């Protein structure tokens, strides 16, 4: 059996349910919501 072999990093990542949950929530929150809010807040004032 391969019990003594090191678990590959990709497998460690994909087997870590809570890390996946964290990334699944944080990545869209940052890329869509946070970036979108920053975009709206930095709209310049009309002259």
């Amino acid at each position, binding site marked *: *059996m*391969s*019990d003594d*072999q090191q*678990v*590959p990093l*990709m*497998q460690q990542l*994909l087997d870590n349910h809570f890390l996946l949950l964290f990334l699944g929530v944080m990545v869209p929150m940052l890329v869509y919501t946070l970036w979108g809010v920053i975009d709206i807040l930095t*709209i*310049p*004032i*009309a*002259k």
Partner: protein
Amino acid sequence: MSAILPPADRLWWKQPLDRVEGTWIVIAFVWCMVMFAMMVGWHIYGKQNLSTETYKTTRELYSAKAQAMVDRYTVRKETDKEIPVVHPPAGSDVYLVARLWDWWPILELEKDKTYRLHLTSMDYNHGFSLQPVNINIQVVPGYEHVIKVTPNQAGTFSIICNEYCGIGHANMAGRIYVK
């Protein structure tokens, strides 16, 4: 093999990728890249996905600018609502106001000349929809969208409101003349 049981091999990552699964992944990825490129492509070469400048404004500031343009360049009045027809100089900033329930003023533009068209609403969200060209821009209170327009066709174009704004929404139509 079942999807809900743990993998048979402890080091399941090392199991070689099935050829069909690999092909499926490649095809799906390539198509995603094509669709992403189309977003850029449509923006550059398409007629609908426009880039506007956007500014934060107030009703008072914007109406002052619109009224100044109307005061300087009105040529006549039309319709029973006495909406001024404005003929601004080529290359200038032209202002359109959306409010319950009309488009004010009526613009008279010249063919092949470029203008900076400003759009805002005095009250609720409206939709600027230029027909039959079908150019659509959301018009939002508190924000001013500026878009560079160069009319390439003479005639009369209608503006309809395509964002529901209340009981007069269906009758909220304006026009633009291009000479």
